[in-house]
């Protein structure tokens, strides 16, 4: 079992950080009821942990007896779609955006199914079930509107918890129907403390330098920090003070792309880079992450004037990425633009020299 799963807090009271928020959540469920929730925050901040703690607070340990099953749906156009769900007696968890354009059907069917089955013994359990939807920001507009309507209709029988990294792509109608709770990423200090605690429980001694390095490299993503730490342990068996913390291969790959852009600005490079970007996309790296990593690496290699221009372009294309259809178009446009800017700067420098 991974450390990240093994040492995941199970109770609201045992959470390591955001203790005030944990207290608020506890108070929220005191009466045995809560409104629809919209939990948001960066990756690896502990959104899911908090949701599960909340559910346990509400339903007791029965929430841990989960089964994974695949549900089948039929779209109006007779297309069969499958989606995998995790469910217990009290809740069901799914990520409707997995089915892409057909997510509306999934949302409506699931909510109807859950809402229309009454709990048999209302005294022993709560009178509502919980539907946990993850990756809400990737839902289509259609699905979000469907969600809005069904949320209101079935409030008696079910509560919906939405989980997303950013609420900017969630329509305002949904935001206003939910209690929005932001879970911020843990600070570097908090990560260091947690890593040390985990290592102590594993009866290992974690040198200060490594925990610092992991905490800075993990991008304040606690899950990744724990994985990195465990990976260090696996690689060297013993955690040594001078050990180097490896970065993920895709990150190196993106850095590689940035280097190629700086090295040679030409059409052949562009064609090659398109292939590389395709590789990343096919592998499933979210395009926002590609964008961020690429930008960070590019900014290392340029002076302030150029940096301002590049950041401006990045902002433009990142916005389009969120709006538009195919990510490769925007990524390539950004790469081409940066190469142009870089080339122009070099030519100006040469002209100044003479």
């Amino acid at each position: 079992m991974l450390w990240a799963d093994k040492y995941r807090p199970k109770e609201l009271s045992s959470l390591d950080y955001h203790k005030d928020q944990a207290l608020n959540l506890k108070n929220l469920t005191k009466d045995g009821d809560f409104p629809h929730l919209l939990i948001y925050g960066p990756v690896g901040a502990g959104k899911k942990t908090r949701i599960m703690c909340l559910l346990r607070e509400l339903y007791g340990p029965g929430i841990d007896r989960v089964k994974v099953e695949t549900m089948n749906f039929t779209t109006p156009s007779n297309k069969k779609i499958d989606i995998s769900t995790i469910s217990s007696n009290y809740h069901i968890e799914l990520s409707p955006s997995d089915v892409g354009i057909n997510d509306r059907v999934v949302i409506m069917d699931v909510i109807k199914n859950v809402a229309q089955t009454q709990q048999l013994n209302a005294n022993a359990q709560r009178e509502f079930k919980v539907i946990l939807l993850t990756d809400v920001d990737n839902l289509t507009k259609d699905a979000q509107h469907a969600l809005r309507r069904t949320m209101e209709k079935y409030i008696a029988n079910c509560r919906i918890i939405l989980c997303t990294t950013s609420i900017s792509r969630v329509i305002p109608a949904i935001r206003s129907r939910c209690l929005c709770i932001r879970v911020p990423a843990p600070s570097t200090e908090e990560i260091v403390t947690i890593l040390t605690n985990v290592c102590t429980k594993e009866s290992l001694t974690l040198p200060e330098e490594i925990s610092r390095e992991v905490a800075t490299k993990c991008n304040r993503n606690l899950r990744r920090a724990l994985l990195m730490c465990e990976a260090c342990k696996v690689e060297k068996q013993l955690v040594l003070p001078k050990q180097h913390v490896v970065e993920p291969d895709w990150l190196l790959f993106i850095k590689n792309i940035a280097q190629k852009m700086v090295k040679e600005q030409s059409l052949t490079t562009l064609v090659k880079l398109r292939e590389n970007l395709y590789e990343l996309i096919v592998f499933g790296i979210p395009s926002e992450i590609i964008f961020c990593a690429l930008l960070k690496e590019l900014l290392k290699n340029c002076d302030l004037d150029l940096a301002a221009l590049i950041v401006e372009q990045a902002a433009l294309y990142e916005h389009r990425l969120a709006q538009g259809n195919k990510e490769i178009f925007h990524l390539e446009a950004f790469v081409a633009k940066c190469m142009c800017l870089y080339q122009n700067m070099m030519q100006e420098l040469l002209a100044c020299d003479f």
Partner: protein
Amino acid sequence: MKKGAKKWLGLQFDFEENSKTIPSTNCTTVEVKKSKSDLSALKKRTFNFQLHLKPKIVTDLAVHSKKIGEVESWLQLNVINRPKNSVCNQTASFLLICGPTGSGKTATIQVLCKKLGIDISEWTNPVDQEFDFYRGVNQVTGFTEFLTESKWNSLFSVSDKKIILVEDFPNALVRKSEDFGAVLEECYYKGNYPIVFICTDSNDSKMNLSEKLFTQDLRNKYKIVEISFNACAMTLLRNALKRAHNLVQDNLDLFKTPSPETVNAIIATSMGDIKCAINQYYFASLLGTADLPTVSTKKPQKTGTKRKRTETSSSVQSMSRDQTLGLFHGVGKVLNPKRVETGGSWRLNCDLQKLIDEFSTQPTSFIAFLFENYVKYYGNLDDVCAAAEILSLSQTFLEKWVDRQDVLPFSLWVAVMGLMIHNEHRVMKWTPITGPKKTQKKVSERDVTDLYYRNIINNVENSRFDVTV
């Protein structure tokens, strides 16, 4: 139609009765169809131009002789030399003929069947049924029954050789193409007569029956032979019109002889469509009309008689076929923009409106094609940068999974104009156009960004990216 007649045979008999008025009773239903669309009813002395011009012998056909040979050998093999009295252990054979409109698919089958003494019974979609009156079998069942049970010979048949011709596919099948497999299966084991399917090619992938209904699986499973026809060649068209010319010469009291220029214009405009060519010739030869005015431009000549004709008969609305651009042709036009200098500035030498109308139904795929190929046609990084910016802009019109039909053409306009205008340093060499890359995300893992560490921890091989510079 009587209530008792539940089978299609009843309907077929009706057709036979109608067709008695037509002298030749050989291929019955087909001729009924032709005579209905006959336009010569307008004339005082009735003269069936179309019927007289109909190919009667193999040499009349405006089809390449090799194609005719292919069809004939299939018929020989599967109809004439078919072992008799072996109803069991015998599976029906299927032939699929496809090709563009007016390439002589149906005519070839008819002429060859006549030559070889084979009867044709053709399926036509029933249009005159009232549902209240004729409850019961649905269209697909009716179709299947017709294909499997039309084993009783017609009273007027001359031989026991027969094929079943399907040109008019039931609408239910066109809408739900997956049912077609079941129909074929039924026919394959039960049917007694070879079945010939005729499919007209179409640019629209939704309407392309030969692709949609006859999937590769079905073709393999039921051993469907496919013979595809090409559009009529110029010389063959000319020969066909020569026959028409002779016909006109024989009936000079009814027709006048069109001038050779008109004939040339007709051949140019019909784009290999024999039906279209003959119709145009027919109208050009009508008495009392002026010579068809021909517009001579660099483009294929166009005949401009639409205005005159509409008064006389409404069925003559389109004289020339729409010139359709293939996808590759369109992509090539955008990536190789032609410019004309006018004064100090330049203009694009291209009918943009027409180009965009052509692809307005499939903006996503067209832009994907452009994106995949545009870099190869550009010679300068700055140009590419501008073009990439434009393509990225065009994508914002194609929002994620939202089909807003009204904004789709804008994306095309932006992409096409942008690519054509920014291509200042065009690369003049032959570059093959490649199809857009299909990216299939592997969504097997939840967090791909952390997969690397998990693989380290679980000791799984970690080599997906080549990180060497």
